[in-house]
């Protein structure tokens, strides 16, 4: 039906019956379109508006047209604007000597220039622009169609395309080409990746990325899908390259997570690769072991149910020859439920595990499975003087079935009993300066004993000692071993919260055994009658800085382990560093100490230039293992990312490599990686 348009003006002259001349900040409003101009003549019989500029026409919040003069019909949907500029999403500007509006949906620009760069007197040549004989903007489909378009960088024509279709910047999910990236590596030479994004319905998308270089023809793909119950995603690649002639190389990673009813969640993961070097050659992933799994789990306040089957495949060169001695599949089950009983908490549960190895060689090819039941009762009280006392007693029984390992009978079993009592006395004070401090001494007596056969140890081999298990009953990670004998665990925690936002946390602890049991290796820090000293600390200034560290050292101050992390971030500079020192430990196949520092830093040099640096430095060998430099130039219309990284280490299978990457993204065109572009004023 005929809609009404409204006009507001300072003055309107009535020239006889059918022409009105409106003057003085005239505005015409029709639906979501608003036009403002100094002078408009309304010819009623022809139902046309003759508009003198400067004209601004705004369509919803995403399209703006600026013109010198125009002829439009009264509902502003059809007509011609002269020497006009169309601005999309306040970002992409299309200028033309003539713009024609058709049905309020299409905007046709002849001899037009498209760019999101600011053009001003000081910088007449935009950083990039697309010149076209004709551009059609379809507002409904949110697409831009270019006829005989030439792309120019800094005024220099780069390439010419007879036909080009690009998504309108306001379109969030649109099928189409994303911007190509250039990557050159010592292994694969200089190549180009051209991603093509396809939306599949409302809840799935597929990205194809051909990657072509002198050494390789590769197709990468990624599939993502959301469903009511959860989500699924796959990524992979297929390659035919010169590194491995006449062999198709591929990798496929997939994972999904679904709610499957009654509160259970199903998580699945798949990792497949054609050959061990593929992931590193193409820098797809630095995983050195592939894990595929399916896991069903449900966790509630007083109940945990967990069932998982995992398949392993190693990519480590030293492990591939003896791959059949490595577990190929591992099944786990654990169930636990707690009840309030006799003023305390009774927890009972069942667990099971099974390990399969391909090899049948005695000992090396061991297959074993375990089934067990366990229960413990724990009670806690606050004592009148503010102490917290806790008591736990527990018993567990496990039966093992072992094959292909003469050191163990087929059927073995054992019973473990354990008990612990803990006394905590948290105290607080406020210092003169207003800092709140908490001091918490903790004393624990723990005991455990095992009756029965020695059983195979699959899940309790790698032992760590830190503040997380200083006061736990057993420092073994799994159930195949429990820390036996009587011991005292002592510790003091100190926390200081300064009014200025500084937080300091520290903990010192040690384990003293009543008799030496020899169950732990030296490298764990738990060996001997008394363990290493454990000292851990954290210094934090709200969001800006945090330094966390812990160390284990013996009475004579020789350090067994030390690790630290630092994170610092301000709007201008960010840095993250890690430090690791591990004493040599033959049991962890570490003939000499591991001593490594990694650093990642980023710094904004100017409003447009920012740099980043990363390195992994092997202190023991006094040389860098990896280093990388990044440089980014970013303006309101273009972001250029230059990255150079080098891996220095070389070995039989992996050679030292250098990677160079160039990534360009244009604001307003394709996937906008620029994020909040820095809008620069003309005089900027």
């Amino acid at each position, binding site marked *: 039906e*005929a809609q009404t348009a409204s006009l507001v003006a300072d003055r309107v*002259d009535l020239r006889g019956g059918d022409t009105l001349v409106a003057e003085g900040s005239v505005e015409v409003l029709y639906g979501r379109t608003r036009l403002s101009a100094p002078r408009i003549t309304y010819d009623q019989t022809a139902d046309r508006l003759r508009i003198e500029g400067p004209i601004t026409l705004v369509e919803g919040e995403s399209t703006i047209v600026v013109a010198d003069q125009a002829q439009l019909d009264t509902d502003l949907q059809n007509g011609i604007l002269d020497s006009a500029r169309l601005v999309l999403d306040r970002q992409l500007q299309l200028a033309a000597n003539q713009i024609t509006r058709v049905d309020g949906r299409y905007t046709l620009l002849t001899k037009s220039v498209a760019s999101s760069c600011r053009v001003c007197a000081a910088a007449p040549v935009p950083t990039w622009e697309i010149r076209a004989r004709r551009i059609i903007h379809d507002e409904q489909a949110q697409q831009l169609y270019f006829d005989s378009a030439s792309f120019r960088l800094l005024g220099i024509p780069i390439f010419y395309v007879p036909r080009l279709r690009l998504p309108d910047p306001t379109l969030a999910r649109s099928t189409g080409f994303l911007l190509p990236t250039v990557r050159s590596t010592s292994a694969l030479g200089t190549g180009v990746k051209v991603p093509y994004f396809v939306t599949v319905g409302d809840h799935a998308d597929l990205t194809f990325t051909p990657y072509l270089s002198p050494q390789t023809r590769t197709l990468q793909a990624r599939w993502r899908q959301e469903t009511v119950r959860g989500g699924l995603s796959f990524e992979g690649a297929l390659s035919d390259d010169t590194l491995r002639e006449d062999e198709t190389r591929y990798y496929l990673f997939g994972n999904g997570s679904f709610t499957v009813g009654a509160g259970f969640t199903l998580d699945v993961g798949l990792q497949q690769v054609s050959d061990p070097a593929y992931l590193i050659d193409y820098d797809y992933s630095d995983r050195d072991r592939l894990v595929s799994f399916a896991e069903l789990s449900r966790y509630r306040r007083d109940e945990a149910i967990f069932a998982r089957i995992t398949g392993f495949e190693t990519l480590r060169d030293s492990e591939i020859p003896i791959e059949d001695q490595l577990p190929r599949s591992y099944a786990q089950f654990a169930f636990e439920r707690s009840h309030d009983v006799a003023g305390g908490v009774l927890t009972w549960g069942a667990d099971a595990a099974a390990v399969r190895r391909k090899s049948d060689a005695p000992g090396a090819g061991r297959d074993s499975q375990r089934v067990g039941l366990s229960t413990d009762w724990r009670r806690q009280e606050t004592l009148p003087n503010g102490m917290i006392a806790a008591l736990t007693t527990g018993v567990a029984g496990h039966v093992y079935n072992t094959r292909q390992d003469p050191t163990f009978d087929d059927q073995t079993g054992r019973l473990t009993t354990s008990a612990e009592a803990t006394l905590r006395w948290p105290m607080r004070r406020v210092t003169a300066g207003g800092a709140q401090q908490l001091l918490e001494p903790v004393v624990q007596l723990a005991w455990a004993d095992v009756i029965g056969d020695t059983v195979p140890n699959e899940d309790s081999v790698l032992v760590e000692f830190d503040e997380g298990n200083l006061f736990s009953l057993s420092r073994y990670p799994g159930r195949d071993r429990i820390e036996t004998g009587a011991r005292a665990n002592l510790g003091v925690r100190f926390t200081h919260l300064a009014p200025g936002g500084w937080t300091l946390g520290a903990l010192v602890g040690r384990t003293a055994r009543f008799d030496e049991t020899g169950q732990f290796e030296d490298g764990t820090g738990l060996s001997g009658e008394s363990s290493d000293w454990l000292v851990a600390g954290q210094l934090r200034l709200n969001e800006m800085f945090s330094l966390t560290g812990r160390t284990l050292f013996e009475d004579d101050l020789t350090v067994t382990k030390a690790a630290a992390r630092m994170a610092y971030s301000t709007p201008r500079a960010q840095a993250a560093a890690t430090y690791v020192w591990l004493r040599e430990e033959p049991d962890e196949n570490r003939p000499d100490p591991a001593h490594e520092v990694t650093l990642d830093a980023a710094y904004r040099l100017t409003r447009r230039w920012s740099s980043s640096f990363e390195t992994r430095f092997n202190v023991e060998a006094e040389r860098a293992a990896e280093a990388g430099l990044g440089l980014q130039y970013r303006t309101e219309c273009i972001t250029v990312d230059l990255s150079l990284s080098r891996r220095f280490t070389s070995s039989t299978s992996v050679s030292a490599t250098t990677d160079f990457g160039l990534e360009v993204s244009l604001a307003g065109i394709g996937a906008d990686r620029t994020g909040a572009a820095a809008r620069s004023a003309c005089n900027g």
Partner: protein
Amino acid sequence: QGTGIDMGGLTQDTGLPVEVDAEQLEVNQTDGTAVFTGGVTVTQGEMTLTAERVQVVYASGEQGRIQEMQASGGVTLVTPEEAAESQEAVYEIESGNVTMTGEVLLTQGPNTLSSDRLVIDLTTGTGTMEGGVRTIFQTGDN
């Protein structure tokens, strides 16, 4: 003796006789004015003007020659194609100008215009609206 091109209904032969009727009439001999009140209707040719109160100012000297009419208390001016309303209006017969002020509303065919002031030149059939002009007009649906 209409002059010039008929630019729509606004043109008006200001030479035609003016007829005024109202409920009361007060005549003031000394300053030569007459005040009509109560449903005053002034007609001249095809144009009629109604108002609550019209004060007629006669040209000095010649008796019976009206120089100016001041209407107030809600004025409407109706011509064959237009209708205009306002709070007050002044019709200067000599120059053929009608000046309407105060919440002026003019309807011209399907379009309506509102503003603070409207000056109509009856001899040329043109008009100018000033002061926050606002108009709603039908658009042909395409």
